[in-house]
């Protein structure tokens, strides 16, 4: 029994970070229909900001979090202005964003590899290797802190979307772009701002990743399938869905990892992606795909 509890605890502890990584991706897809394949490489960007602060100045990654979020959000603004704004009215927008963001991911990977080499890195604040014990169950401090910070950020995002004026504008644009525009929403600005928020969240997630996992520039390829499976299982564009999917899959992955080995635990996400697409393509909280 203690074993089971231990596995669930470890799964839940990681679920929060997954949820934060996935929610930025989900937001950007929901509002802009941008399939952002560069999201994980932007997360890597955030991880390297944390690494840079930690190695050079000994700054705690959690303190670097807002710095990384701002730097990455600014990167988001630049990317959006360069690549996405002009194409926003194109009928093939979503398809084109797949190619565009794929290219962005390659460029970021190359840039990070040039700046930091392809060596595995990790930031190692003291808590990253420490743990709490409740009876025989241990909770790694690093994962716990990362999970709590993630949930706070996602909670903040949810409150912002639910209650703020700009949150209304984002939700309205997600659900009916034309109607939002006709009610006075500047949908171009909403697109830009949501993209910046989504990428800023990637930056924030990156600083947490920096002490929960080891990372190197090309690692983002491993993440993309994981994040896609979270967003697809949750329902494309549903942030709540992404959060639920994150906890669900990371607990399942923890069980698979425990009983079949770590290699298989990554496969959980791939298999989930296939199963969802076959059985329930709209995911947990998504709308049924239109048959047109």
């Amino acid at each position, binding site marked *: 029994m203690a074993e089971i509890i231990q596995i669930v605890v470890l799964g839940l502890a990681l679920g929060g970070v997954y949820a934060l990584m996935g929610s930025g991706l989900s937001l950007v897809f929901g509002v802009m229909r941008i399939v952002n394949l560069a999201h994980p490489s932007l997360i890597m960007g955030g991880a390297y900001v944390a690494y840079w602060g930690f190695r050079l100045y000994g700054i705690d990654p959690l303190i670097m979090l807002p710095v990384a979020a701002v730097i990455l959000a600014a990167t988001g603004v630049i990317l959006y202005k360069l690549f996405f704004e002009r194409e926003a009215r194109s009928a093939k927008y979503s398809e084109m964003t797949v190619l565009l963001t794929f290219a962005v991911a390659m460029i970021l990977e190359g840039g990070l590899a040039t700046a930091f080499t392809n060596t595995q890195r990790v930031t190692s604040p003291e808590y990253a290797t420490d743990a709490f014990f409740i009876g025989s169950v241990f909770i790694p401090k690093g994962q716990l802190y990362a999970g709590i910070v993630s949930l706070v950020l996602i909670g903040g995002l949810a409150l912002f979307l639910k209650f703020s*004026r700009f949150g*209304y*504008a984002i*939700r*309205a644009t997600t*659900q*009916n772009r*034309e*109607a*939002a*525009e*006709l*009610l*006075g*929403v*500047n949908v171009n600005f909403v697109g830009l701002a949501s993209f910046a928020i989504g990428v800023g969240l990637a930056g924030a997630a990156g600083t947490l990743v920096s002490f929960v996992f080891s990372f190197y520039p090309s690692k983002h390829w491993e993440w993309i399938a994981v994040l896609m499976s979270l967003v697809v299982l949750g329902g494309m564009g549903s942030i709540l869905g992404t959060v639920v999917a994150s906890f669900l899959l990371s607990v399942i992955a923890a069980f698979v990892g425990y009983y079949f080995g770590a290699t298989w635990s990554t496969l959980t996400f791939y298999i989930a992606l296939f199963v969802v697409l076959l059985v329930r393509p709209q995911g947990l909280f998504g709308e049924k795909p239109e048959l047109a």
Partner: protein
Amino acid sequence: MNELLEVRDVVAGYGDGPAILNGASLKVQPGKVHCIIGPNGAGKSTLLKAICGMLKVRQGDVKLRGEDLKGLRPDQVLKKGICFVPQERALFPKMTVRENLRMGGFSLEDKSDLEERIDEIEERFPILKERRDQHAGTMSGGQQQTLSMARTMIIRPDIVMLDEPSLGLAPKIVQEVFDIMHVMAETGITVLIVEQNALMGLKNADWGVVLDLGRTLFEGPADEVLADPRIQELYLGGKKAA
């Protein structure tokens, strides 16, 4: 005459495509219900989209109280006092009814009395009060249409433009839609409606505008337009047998 809105010889179309409107004109009198009729493809919806800034006006004039609206974005036209309800799906299906109403007031500079304005609308349309916490997408077609029309009243606009509000609704519900339109007119809102069902539309309007092939054929008091033999020609493809 003292026009609220004047559209003169407007040429407009979608993107770089051919012009759909080829000299459409229209005069809107304050406080009246105006109905634009015409056969399929006449450019009725296109005209509304050109007025509200969704489409670029290539030639001609669109003036509200003498002020040029050409080149403004939809959110800017809205701020001038013209609210457009597009055909179908004008709502945010996963927002509640109340949230949809709040979105109606999005463009208000001063939001201090927004909740009171919404309460007022709920009093006028009790079904919206009853369903206030329900997702808009889960309501019936008629209720959704009520919501999208009532929502425009939040900002107390000068003109509301409705693009075929009766589309896809059961005949019994259609009259309700026109009733809401009359409620709007009573509160002083000028209505400009596009209607496929010419007879129904004109019967509920003060002023009729007949559009064909992107131009205004003629306009006049609704009952006169209704009685005009040219209507028969337009809709039945030939002169009515004497």
